[in-house]
């Protein structure tokens, strides 16, 4: 069926934070329905989107995620009644903050995927993966990881340049 597999130069790392009751079950349904989607996504299961701390998203980007998906129950469907309502406000705020410090919000996707929406899971994951693939690696946080205060760096760009100008 898919004999020809496309080779990509860049395979993005996508991290999905999902709630166990809706989206995790939706992803299970996609599996039992044998739907196909890119293998880039790594799923972390939470009881509820209400448990998902914005720090986790930040941390995922810092640890090399090129895209992050946060997904839970539709409003009103929360197993815990209100966890996703609180999460919705929290993420609205956090998203604004990340946007303001210059994170491209195209890399951060929020969705409601119910246990019955295997197809939507596939759609959301595929779309984010393809979008991020086209955007290329998330360089910002990774670059920061390698940066030092000038005094702690073993050599500085200036020095490197100076060295290069000599040899």
């Amino acid at each position, binding site marked *: 069926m898919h004999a020809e597999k496309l080779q990509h130069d860049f395979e993005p790392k996508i991290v999905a934070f999902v709630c166990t009751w809706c989206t995790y079950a939706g992803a299970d349904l996609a599996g039992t329905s044998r739907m196909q989607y890119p293998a880039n996504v790594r799923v972390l299961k939470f009881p509820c989107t209400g448990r998902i701390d*914005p*720090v986790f998203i*930040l*941390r995922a980007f*810092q640890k090399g995620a090129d895209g992050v998906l946060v997904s839970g129950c539709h*409003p*009103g469907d929360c197993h815990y009644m*209100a966890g996703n*309502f*609180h999460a*919705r*406000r*929290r*993420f*609205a*705020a*956090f*998203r*604004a*903050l*990340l*946007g*303001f*410090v*210059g*994170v*491209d*919000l195209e890399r951060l*996707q*929020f*969705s*409601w995927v119910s246990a019955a929406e295997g197809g939507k899971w596939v759609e*959301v994951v595929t779309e984010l993966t393809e979008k991020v693939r086209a955007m290329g690696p998330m360089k*910002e*946080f990774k670059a*920061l*990881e390698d*940066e*030092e*205060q000038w005094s*702690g760096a073993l050599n500085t760009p200036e020095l490197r340049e100076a060295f290069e100008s000599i040899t």
Partner: protein
Amino acid sequence: MNAKAEKIRVASIDPSYYQAVTDAIRTEAVKLLSEEAVVAVVGYLPGRRIGTAVPGLVTTPEQAQQLIFSPACVNNLSLYLTKAKKGVLKKGKVAIIAKGCDLRALAGLMGESQVKKEDIYTIGIACAGVFGANSDRKGGLTEASIARKCRECTVHQPEGVDLLVGTLPELPQLTALEAQELARLEALTPEERWAYWKEQFSKCIRCLACRQVCPFCYCEQCLCDKNRPQALESSPRPAGNTAWHIVRAMHLAGRCGGCAECERVCPMDIPLNLLNRRMAMELKELYDYEASMVPQEKGPLTRYQEDDDQSFIK
């Protein structure tokens, strides 16, 4: 730029204003302490250097005679009522001098069960503005020396205080520099904004003055000090610094009263209040929430409505 010509009217037209406020504070503080209505008055005392004032935890009527109010009274004293400063004040009712912006912090602390209304006596100041960080203070309060937050202050007149001190002089309209800066940043591309903040955060040395002066940073264990697990790197490298400032802004979202103390005390001049302002703007727009001088039961991130905006969610 001629500093003299720009001298704003609050300082030049009404020089008696600060004296009147100072006198009123002293009278009240002496009365409260001599009647033993309070165990301490948290106010301002003159500093050694020109144009400076320091927080004072005043416990005797004699000391109370030294209390002042001037544009140098920049600190948000509500800090001294929080758990972060436990043990500093004796148990009992405390009087506190508060500007409008400080009052919003006090109200927030009440909403978060940190301060009880009945435990404090608030002396609210009708405040015309205070000095900005690193400003030239020799010429009094001028357009050049006024703090950026004061240029667009909406809480000159305190509300809900036990005693209101001072009559507000006529205030000039000043350009909203902070709002302008915010708009400028908003207009940039994400890459440009990232570059801007990267440069700002790279200066950070993690002295945590921003945290230590914040009335809302009263946690016994700050997330950034935790090591099991380590939520964000504690070393002052660009990665950890960026994470720290993002987390800080997030933790203050919906709580910050806008006193901008974090920005004032930053020895590296990182414009931290821009982050707080940006979050406040967002919460105002999404949930019609604004920090208030009156305690609110729940903040915007501890409540919800079923029909909250979810245009960003697929």
